[in-house]
């Protein structure tokens, strides 16, 4: 009887996006089901079960639940639960015991399990995308189905570097690529490579892959291109890469197998009953917000109020005379507005880019030319937005203008005294305040917090809704969920949590709207109260068409704002208004448009060490447009005059430190983190002692990739991560002695309360020692030194060296330390002098000065991604923080000023504040905890003196599109204000 009773085992795996069921009997699978659940967790489970009941209706069943969304369900229905990674290992142990490693990608989780040499199970951390949901999002972005994207990837030619940290980062890389005309095939493949890289850095983390590798989970089951990328990157052949047929069901099988022993025993009908009962019991969780609208009437009043902000429209068929066209080629959408003599709107267009903005604009221009006929002459055309350069070149538009100026021009039309504009677009949040007719401060979101419009859209689609329908659902939500203010990846898991608590789609939709608003207010604008923003606030951008977002914004601020009826077209409308100064346009004619052809190919620029990956767009008239370049060299327009660039100067100085052969052999130092500051010291010191001092070369992407396998923490800053690659570089050169000292304290410049290094610069040697295997085969020296006490410094260094250099004398080390200090001081003096020279040159030649303020290691070409060159190409004389800090006395700030590098930032900010011709742009590495403190201080130093504060967050991201917009906005604002000052 006992055997009969336990004959059926059921495993239910409810993941973040799909539900899987496996019914087993006598070790055989008799029923399987795989279904997307669109967040209707319980309902989907019940559907599957009732379908199952059609075929099997066992009286005696043992059941086990698994999966991240199954956790809550199991709890409330009082059913046993097994953690999904554990279930997978269970399955592998039974079904394929010869497996060495399992790589499983799920909807929102990525897991790696090592069986060989001690079982080790790893899951992705909280800041890591690169999973099924990420691939889905990317497919939406490319306007392809996941299958189509996979097919495209198989035809690809090349791989672009795409940041693999998380979905948001990758998107910032992909969208500009699309706008620049890179092929979808290549992008698809690059996305897969990003997923692979993410898995390697986030999960494999230096552990060696041995034996057979089994690939599990939906994405790896469906995406052939992804499988191929994994096999090639990990160097697997057919014999040791296993793609089982049951890849989708591994967790469910594991759950079913454990159900045999530990499952709850009941009949299938009882199981269904229990599940439906628990659904009824799930009440409203505690973390909820107030509804957006009290009632229907409240909503109607709100609508009526906003409907007042409109522009007159006139049917294009009735109009005759001159017209002006504005094109806003944004990151996800393309917008066109045609206006007539009285600024009235004749024609508008708004659509998703579908990955190919050029084709869309061509189609629309054709249509427009037809509509205009002989009656209307387009006298001017201005382009703005991400794709500005491409579209302007492709269609010979009359001018391109930076987005901020376009938006301000449009907002002024609705509210001449506007003093604050907030624009939430597909991918950006932009906001700027206006003081006495000029743009006063500009804030743009960081790559990391861009949970904006496209986020709601992809989220809506992933839950099976169109965005408009999804937004509408949020309006009358009774209890919006509180999802916090974080980036997309975090929001995904917040939503998961609220689903677990039984939140409805309505509540989630409203909650997302509130989050978008809070994100903008508290992360981007950093406001405490509406007073901080202004009195006359105009909101715009496609996202504000969503009434729930608009309402959430007003509620959060406690004030009423203006949303123009053309909120999504403001960029294009502003561009059109701006174009009204043209009497005649060079825009392509109807005939030219008909014969218009556009192809793109990729190339690599050899102009300098940046080796920019270029996309070359060829147009039918033989003209071409090149994008992806950081400077103007690629365009063949070698600048006649090179502006002073202290970043370049510092790199040149460091390049001069060449190895001098000596009796003690080679000593290698990684050119990363603190070495950028102290290289001259170490070089002189070790050369004096008879070591041949070798520095690793400046980084490029390949250096990073060489070392990414051993990075233990995926949220540490990029300059630290790149350190691993430098060590690998030195090792691959056969260097047997490697030196990177540990320095709690930095050089005391007497400029603050203390002179620490940050924890990462100070102690990263420990991480290298503990995580890079091959370092144990060489002599890795990382002594703890007190750099401000030469005697102790010499003694400690002597202690570190003498075990292997028995003939070394303490007096030698003392002399070498002295030589080291002299070299360091001379080096710093040269930098300061070069800074002063650059400044006086700029003043003589009437150029603007820009302090690109970061840390010494930000001059690394891979870390700053050539931003210094971009600055000089925009006409700024570019100096570094350490070349001007000495021009101002130590600063009193409102925080503890206790880090040497950061004290320089405050001093150079003061310099910018004191000088009319000098601006400061702060470079901040993603993950730099200390800059969370410095940025606010530097902002207030600058803004108290009426200066703009611009911050650029840098990470793995290589595309400079967003940076260019930021710098051009700064320049645009300066010029506008300058004009008015005269």
């Amino acid at each position: 009887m006992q055997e009969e009773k336990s004959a059926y085992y059921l495993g239910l795996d409810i993941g973040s996006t799909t539900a899987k069921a496996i019914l087993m009997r006598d070790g055989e699978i008799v029923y399987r089901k795989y279904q997307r659940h669109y967040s209707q967790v319980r309902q989907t489970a019940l559907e599957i079960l009732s379908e199952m009941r059609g075929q099997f209706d066992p009286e005696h069943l043992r059941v086990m639940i698994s999966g991240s969304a199954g956790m809550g369900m199991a709890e409330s229905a009082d059913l046993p639960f097994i953690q999904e990674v554990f279930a997978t290992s269970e399955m592998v142990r039974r079904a394929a015991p010869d497996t060495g490693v399992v790589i499983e990608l799920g909807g929102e989780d990525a897991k790696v399990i090592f069986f060989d040499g001690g079982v080790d199970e790893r899951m992705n951390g909280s800041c890591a995308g690169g999973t099924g949901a990420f691939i889905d999002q990317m497919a939406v972005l490319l306007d392809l189905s996941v299958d189509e994207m996979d097919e495209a990837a198989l035809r690809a030619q090349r791989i672009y570097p795409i940041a693999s940290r998380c979905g948001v980062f990758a998107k910032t890389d992909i969208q500009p690529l699309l706008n620049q005309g890179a092929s979808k095939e290549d992008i698809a493949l690059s996305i897969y490579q990003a997923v692979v890289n993410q898995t390697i850095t986030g999960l494999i983390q230096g552990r060696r892959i041995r034996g057979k590798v089994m690939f599990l989970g939906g994405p790896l089951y469906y995406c052939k291109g992804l499988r191929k990328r994994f096999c090639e990157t990990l160097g697997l052949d057919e014999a040791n890469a296993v793609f089982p047929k049951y890849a989708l069901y591994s967790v469910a099988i594991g759950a079913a197998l454990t159900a045999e022993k530990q499952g709850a025993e009941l009949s299938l009908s009882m199981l269904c009953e229990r599940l439906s009962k628990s659904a009824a019991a799930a009440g409203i969780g505690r973390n909820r917000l107030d509804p957006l609208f009290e009632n229907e009437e409240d909503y109607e009043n709100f609508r009526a109020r906003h409907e007042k902000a409109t522009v007159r429209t006139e049917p294009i068929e009735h109009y005759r005379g001159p017209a002006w066209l504005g094109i806003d080629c944004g990151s996800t959408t393309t917008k066109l507005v045609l206006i007539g003599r009285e600024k009235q709107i004749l024609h508008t267009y708004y659509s998703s880019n579908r990955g190919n903005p050029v084709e869309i604009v061509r189609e629309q221009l054709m249509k427009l030319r037809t509509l205009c006929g002989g009656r209307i002459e387009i006298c001017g055309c201005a382009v703005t937005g991400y794709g500005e350069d491409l579209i302007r070149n492709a269609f010979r538009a009359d001018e391109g203008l930076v987005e901020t100026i376009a938006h301000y021009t449009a907002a002024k039309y609705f509210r001449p005294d506007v003093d604050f504009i907030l624009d939430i677009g597909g991918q950006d949040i932009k906001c700027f305040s206006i003081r006495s007719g000029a743009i006063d401060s500009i804030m743009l979101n960081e790559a990391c917090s861009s949970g904006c419009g496209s986020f709601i859209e992809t989220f809506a689609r992933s839950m099976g809704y169109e965005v408009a329908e999804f937004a509408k659902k949020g309006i009358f939500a009774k209890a919006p969920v509180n999802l916090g203010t974080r980036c997309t990846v975090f929001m995904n898991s917040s939503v998961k949590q609220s689903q677990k608590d039984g939140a409805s789609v309505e509540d989630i939709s409203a909650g997302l709207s509130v989050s978008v608003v809070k994100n903008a207010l508290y992360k981007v604008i950093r406001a405490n109260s509406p007073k901080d923003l202004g009195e006359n606030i105009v909101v715009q951008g496609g996202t504000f068409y969503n009434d729930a977002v608009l309402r959430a914004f007003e509620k959060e601020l406690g004030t009423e704002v203006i949303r123009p009826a053309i909120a999504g077209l403001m960029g294009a409308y502003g561009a059109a208004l701006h174009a009204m100064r043209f009497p005649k346009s060079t825009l392509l004619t109807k005939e030219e448009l008909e014969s218009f052809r556009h192809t793109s190919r990729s190339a690599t620029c050899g102009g300098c060490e940046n080796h920019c990956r270029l996309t070359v767009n060829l147009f039918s008239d033989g003209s071409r447009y090149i994008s992806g370049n950081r400077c103007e060299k690629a365009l063949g327009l070698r600048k006649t005059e090179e502006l002073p660039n202290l970043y370049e100067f510092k790199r040149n100085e460091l390049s001069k430190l060449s190895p001098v052969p000596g009796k003690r052999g080679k000593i290698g130092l990684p050119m990363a983190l603190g070495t950028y500051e102290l290289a001259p010291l170490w070089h002189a010191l070790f050369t004096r002692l008879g070591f041949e001092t070798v520095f690793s070369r400046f980084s490029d992407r390949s250096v990073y990739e060489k070392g990414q396998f051993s990075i233990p923490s995926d949220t540490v800053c990029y300059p630290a991560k790149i350190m691993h690659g430098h060590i690998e570089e030195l090792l691959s050169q056969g260097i047997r002695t490697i030196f990177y000292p540990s320095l709690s304290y930095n050089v005391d410049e007497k400029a603050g309360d203390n002179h620490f290094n940050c924890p990462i610069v100070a102690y990263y040697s420990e991480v290298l020692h503990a995580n890079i295997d091959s370092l144990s085969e060489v002599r890795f020296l990382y002594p703890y030194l007190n750099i401000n006490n030469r005697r102790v410094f010499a003694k400690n260094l002597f202690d570190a060296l003498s075990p292997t250099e028995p003939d070394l004398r303490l007096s030698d080390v003392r002399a070498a330390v002295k030589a080291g200090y002299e070299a360091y001081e001379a080096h710093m003096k040269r930098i300061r002098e070069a800074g002063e020279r650059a400044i006086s040159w700029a003043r003589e030649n009437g150029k603007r000065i820009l302090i690109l303020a970061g840390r010494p290691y930000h001059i690394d070409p891979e870390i700053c991604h050539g931003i210094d060159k971009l600055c000089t190409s925009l006409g700024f004389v570019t100096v570094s923080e350490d070349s001007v800090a000495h021009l101002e006395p130590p600063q009193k700030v409102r925080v503890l000023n206790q880090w040497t590098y950061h004290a320089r930032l405050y001093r150079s900010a003061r310099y910018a504040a004191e000088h009319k011709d000098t601006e400061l742009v702060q470079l901040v590495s993603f993950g730099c905890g200390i800059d969370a403190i410095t940025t606010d201080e530097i902002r207030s130093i600058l803004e108290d003196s009426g200066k703009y504060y611009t911050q650029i967050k840098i990470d793995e991201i290589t595309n400079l599109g967003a940076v260019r917009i930021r710098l051009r906005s700064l320049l645009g604002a300066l010029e506008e204000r300058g004009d008015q000052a005269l």
Partner: protein
Amino acid sequence: MTDDYISFTKEMKKGYTLLIPTMLPMHFRMIISVLKTYGYKMELLETSGPEIAETGLRYVHNDTCYPAVLVIGQFITALESGHYDPHKVALVLFQTGGGCRASNYISLLRKALRRAGYEYVPVIAFSFAGIEKHPGFKTTIPQLHGMLYGILYADLMMWLYNQCRPYETHPGDAQRLCDRWTERLGRELGAGRAVSYRKVKKNYRRIIADFSAIEMKRRDAVKVGVVGEIFVKYSPLGNNHLEDFLISQGAEVVVPGLADFLLYCVYNNILDRRLFRRKSLFNYILCRIGFSLLCGKKNKLSRMISSESDFEPFPDFRDTVTLTEGYIHQEVKMGEGWLLTAEMLELTHSGVKNIVCTQPFGCLPNHVCGKGMMRLIKEKQPDVNIVAIDYDSGATQVNQQNRLRLLLANAQQ
């Protein structure tokens, strides 16, 4: 601190209420009891709820560490609650120094107060380094002495409580015992008399006896160690009630005590002198004496646990100090520094093979001494399971719990 600050004057001592945020409920209640005897009106903030983090985010840069967001959020929520007259309140914040950005909490709090319109509220940095002058708030030797015993009492109770919780026949017994003793010891320490060591020993003995008397089931649960950044390690507000969750899943939680952190701070001063000749000789000698004294007190208590009960005793800090050899240098002293690595090793050495390493999202020192060391620990001790959990206003409980469940599933196998 270069900025001007509102000092806490002698006059304020009379009418003002001092607010202190909670990190460790038992420890802090006792510290407060001691301070109250010196005439301060004090209140421990034990509030919770999502509005704390939200308020914090509004006034602190969002990339600042989570503990700062919470503590500052808690203060401002309290000021805005209407329970207190903001003009009759001062805030007390415990502060460590050093190269970690956490040494900036006081500045960040003052900045946040200014933004929120409470710039007149005095902030007292309660630090053993004593950076600022507050005429109305002075720590004296007898005070510190009392607080030290308060910490040792609380460490003892926390240690025994954790060993009872999963096994109680009558759930809540251990908690009731803690509450009763906290109350009683608080009264005793707050009586204002000099602490007599005889009395202390008697209390220790009775506490141990009381916990031994709790009726318990077979003690066979999986032990899970909790280490990490000090605030999220200890504070239920910071770690989403981590201990309660682990216990609800049938685990016994092992959390190293607060005395170890004090010893770590003192020990770092000794090392600074030994390695780099930083800090004065006087400071060095003082720290060495303090270190021996505190180690001795802790070890005596530990021996008492061994001899009078079946409970596990405290590990000896002098042994803990030696464990980092081959892993991490003891000059790594920002944040929790080498102590974090040492605590993981101390746990594995005492047979606790499952460890949760907690940190605020993006915690800088933990990149080195937490996450940076895990691979090496696992390599040398393959039977050890470590999971790193990030805490943050955006990190969700479901994600955290899923990872904890994985740890537990492996442990309970």
